[in-house]
């Protein structure tokens, strides 16, 4: 098990692993260092979901400031990163602040002072406790300022008795403003709804920083840094390969760039990176189950019921349907949905629609429940599909990048680009020339259509001839591919398959369905015989997405016939269930304008759909 605990990890490693959060930490630390005693002290609230690196950030801030002699000469720090439970009032908060100063201080005199004063306080009247504790704190600080690093501020605010919360928070604000010595860096798992209420004393008080999820590049950097910190050279090298990047892109998709979840995946990636991605995935989910279970337990039974229901449905559900299936009345379901949304468990999919659809916000939480029900279900196929899909896209993107960008580079960089492109291609093969023709003349190549659509007869004739000759060449290309598959020449297969994408597109546009079907069938048989079905499925997926992207250039009838061919050939083959599903939904959504079809997909499926069809689906 890979162990990483921000509370106990050594400071150097924490700095090293601060991926995607460096700038925020810099801002927070600088705000402390550059804050002048006469100005208003900086107050920050960092908002990010579980596992987004908040504890890590606070610890780095603490360590950096602690090492700064000038800062420490003028400041005390109350480092409150334990689970601060049992804070029900402003007085409780003050007490905990004193406790935290005591816990982290090396100054025996200070510690003794706190113990003595709190003992004295026990003998005073309750109505004096708060003011007296304020006075203890102020005299303890003795003109120094105090930085309070505190986690889960949302839970503390929730813990305050609603009836008195406004008054308690007013006192907190008055105290902070009155003495100008207290600065907060607080964290919260979700936006604190009450802070947007202008009657709340802390409205506008905090400078709120919302943590963004890690980007793909940052996730990659993070995993690579962990691998490097373990001197795992083999894994680092694997991560640089198309397969490694494909794996990581799929993992990123599911974890949404969440630090903690990436760590769990890293653990299995490290041990079994050459295995099937779905094996790594299923093991990670098993590891995560107790983690998510503990959060589910914090919910009320009604909320748990809703989360359970949405997890098992996979795709977004209407509020009314959730109510009906969970046996909750309209007002209860509406209240619980809004509370779950505030807590970050669920998201509305369509912000503006009258009938809101909801789904579980973290795909992995949903999958923990889903996989518990059906371990070998669609998700396993989907994970492998994702891994394959991204590998192909990466290879293709790499070739295109070097090949096309090379043209715009000055010498000698251009040469380097061209050489790099050659690594990714069979430049000398007749087949690649054809492929390139397809890429370069993208519009002409794909806009085959029916001959009757072409007005200029000469152009039509030459176009038809061109297409026929291309088809003939492509037929040969397929033959080369089949041979390559039979010869098990891995590199050749990769590259022929990439080129085949265009060939398949030509087939889609080609009028003679029988021939098209024959070639697809032959491809299927060859790949099946050579255990290449998953690879073909990924390739087929790219074609499916391309058909969807270029649907306007393909006649509806041909689209329908293509769909029919796909269905005839691939139905019932598990490896093809994902692309077939995408074709079906894409066809209904875009061609038949069935707008609700989009809601049949889960969040991660939708993301792929949007990415690969270049479409921001309008909900």
């Amino acid at each position, binding site marked *: 098990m890979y162990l990483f605990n921000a509370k106990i990890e050594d400071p150097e490693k924490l700095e090293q692993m601060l991926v995607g959060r460096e700038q925020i930490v810099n801002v927070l630390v600088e705000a402390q260092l550059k804050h002048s005693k006469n100005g208003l002290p900086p107050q920050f609230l960092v908002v990010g979901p579980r596992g987004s690196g908040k504890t890590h950030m606070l610890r780095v801030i603490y360590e950096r400031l602690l090492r700064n002699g000038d800062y420490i000469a003028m400041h005390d720090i109350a480092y409150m990163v334990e689970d601060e439970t049992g804070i029900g009032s402003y007085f409780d908060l003050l007490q905990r602040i004193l406790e935290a100063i005591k816990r982290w201080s090396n100054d025996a005199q200070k510690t003794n002072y706190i113990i003595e004063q709190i003992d004295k306080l026990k003998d005073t009247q309750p109505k004096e406790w708060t003011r007296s504790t304020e006075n203890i704190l102020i005299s303890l600080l003795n003109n120094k300022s105090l930085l309070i690093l505190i986690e889960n501020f949302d839970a503390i605010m929730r813990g305050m008795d609603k009836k008195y919360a406004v008054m308690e928070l007013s006192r907190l604000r008055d105290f902070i403003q009155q003495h100008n010595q207290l600065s907060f860096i607080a964290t919260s798992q979700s936006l604190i709804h009450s802070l947007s209420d*202008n009657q709340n004393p802390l409205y506008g008080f905090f400078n709120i920083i919302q943590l963004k999820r890690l980007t793909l590049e940052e996730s990659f950097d993070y995993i690579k840094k962990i691998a490097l910190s373990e001197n795992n050279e083999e894994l680092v090298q694997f991560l640089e390969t198309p397969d490694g990047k494909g794996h990581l892109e799929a993992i990123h998709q599911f974890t949404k760039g969440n630090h903690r979840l990436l760590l769990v995946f890293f653990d299995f990636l490290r041990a079994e990176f050459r295995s099937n991605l779905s094996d790594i995935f299923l093991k990670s989910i098993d590891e995560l189950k107790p983690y998510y279970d503990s959060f589910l337990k914090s919910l009320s039974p009604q909320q748990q019921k809703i989360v359970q229901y949405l997890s098992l449905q996979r795709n977004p559900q209407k509020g009314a349907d959730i109510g009906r299936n969970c046996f909750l009345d309209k007002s209860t379901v509406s209240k619980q949905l809004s509370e779950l949304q505030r807590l970050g468990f669920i998201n509305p999919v369509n912000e503006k629609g009258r009938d809101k659809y909801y789904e579980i916000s973290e795909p992995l939480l949903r999958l923990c429940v889903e996989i518990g029900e059906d371990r070998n279900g669609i998700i396993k196929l989907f994970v492998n599909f994702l891994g394959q899909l991204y590998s192909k896209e990466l290879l293709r993107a790499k070739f295109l990048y070097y090949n096309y960008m090379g043209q715009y580079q000055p010498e000698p960089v251009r040469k380097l680009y061209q050489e790099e492109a050659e690594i990714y291609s069979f430049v000398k093969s007749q087949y690649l020339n054809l492929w390139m023709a397809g890429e370069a003349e993208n519009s002409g190549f794909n806009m085959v259509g029916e001959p009757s659509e072409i007005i200029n007869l000469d152009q039509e004739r030459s176009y038809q001839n061109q297409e026929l000759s291309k088809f003939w060449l492509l037929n040969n290309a397929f033959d080369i591919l089949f041979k390559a598959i039979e010869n098990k020449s891995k590199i050749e297969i990769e590259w022929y398959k990439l080129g085949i994408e265009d060939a398949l597109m030509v087939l889609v546009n080609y009028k003679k369905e029988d021939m098209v079907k024959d070639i697809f069938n032959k491809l299927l048989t060859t790949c099946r015989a050579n255990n290449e079905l998953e690879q073909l499925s990924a390739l087929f997926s790219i074609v499916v997405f391309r058909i969807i992207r270029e649907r306007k250039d393909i006649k509806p009838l041909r689209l329908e016939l293509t769909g029919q061919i796909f269905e005839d050939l691939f139905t019932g083959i598990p490896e093809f269930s994902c692309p077939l599903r995408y074709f079906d939904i894409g066809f209904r959504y875009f061609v038949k304008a069935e707008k609700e079809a989009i809601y049949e997909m889960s969040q991660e499926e939708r993301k792929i759909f949007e990415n690969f069809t270049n479409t921001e689906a309008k909900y």
Partner: protein
Amino acid sequence: MNNDFMKAIGTDIIGREKEIGELLSILDQTSVIMSSTRRMGKTMILTKIGEIQDLNVKSMLCFVESIQSAEEFVDFLRENLIQQKLIQENGFKSLFNWMNTNLGSKDVGFFKTPDFSKHWKKALNLMMDDLVEKHAGLIILMLDEFPKMLWTMIQNGNHQQATEVLDELRHIRERYEKRSKLRFIYCGSIGMNLVINHLIKRFKYNGAPTNNMHQYIVTEMNPTDATQLVKHLTKKHGVVIDDVLETYLANACSYLPFFIDRIIIQIKISNLVFPISASSIDETVDEFLLGRGNNSQFNHFTERIDTYYDTEEKRIAHELLRLLSKTNVPLSSEALLNHVKIKIVAEDFEIMKILSDLFEDMYVDKSVIDDSTCYQFRFVLLKKWWKSKYA
């Protein structure tokens, strides 16, 4: 005299010299009610005045929002006068003499006992006597969120005490404003007039506790100060930006210090790889104003209408603001009247009254263009926000 005051003020809070100069001139003559909507930076102004501590001027800033009773208020003032070194504990000579004679003790623990409710007025007056006795120069006592303190008392069923505090402070002001320089600033985001009107309407209060005070409204910063603040904060946070963009940023934030501070931090956090441009500033402002989780920045403007305008007024106000948020040019009052009357049955004078209220409450600005009075949103930021939320 103002120049001397200004020298005493530190330089850590940028700008507002003009406003502070005006306030000090007024305070030389009388006490002040300072008000503004939220996020104009009034607390910063008070903090800056609070820095003035010399032989001629002593000031004390107290945050009183959470105070719940008159007794607590008096005790709080006593503690703060000592903590902020305007007077030493043993400096309360009149107070202690009186306590010794009448209560047989000088123990200030008495302030926390139930019996103190009968004596808080006396104690407050004696404390002020002692304070004035100690300082010959101008003494400024600033009570931030004072209207809210009174409002809390009223909400807790203690309206009687709220009126007594107001009356007692008036007596104190009257007593000292003639023969010395004790001045108060009542400051708040909800207006004193709202609190007093509520006391008059609801509890038949017939006092005029603030009519001898000067009303001072804090608005946005002037462009020079706002640009100066941008310069200071960008330097502080290591954000590289040229003079033209400094001015642009100040303007994009409607010269509101709160937003300038927030936007510069957001720019820094977003770690812009490319040089900062006008469009990247606009994007950051939009994200901060309209992005997920950020759409409550101007809720107080909506709530002000919802709370203090009656049903019909609310509809008219929303209609006017909706239209103004959608247009890029100032609209004449005639155009606005016509627009509203298409949608709502209302007389011209009713609509004009709402326009005037919206002007007073700083939603809109007016100017004369081609002989017509024209209106537009006062703050570009508020306009954007209003458009995204209601238009």
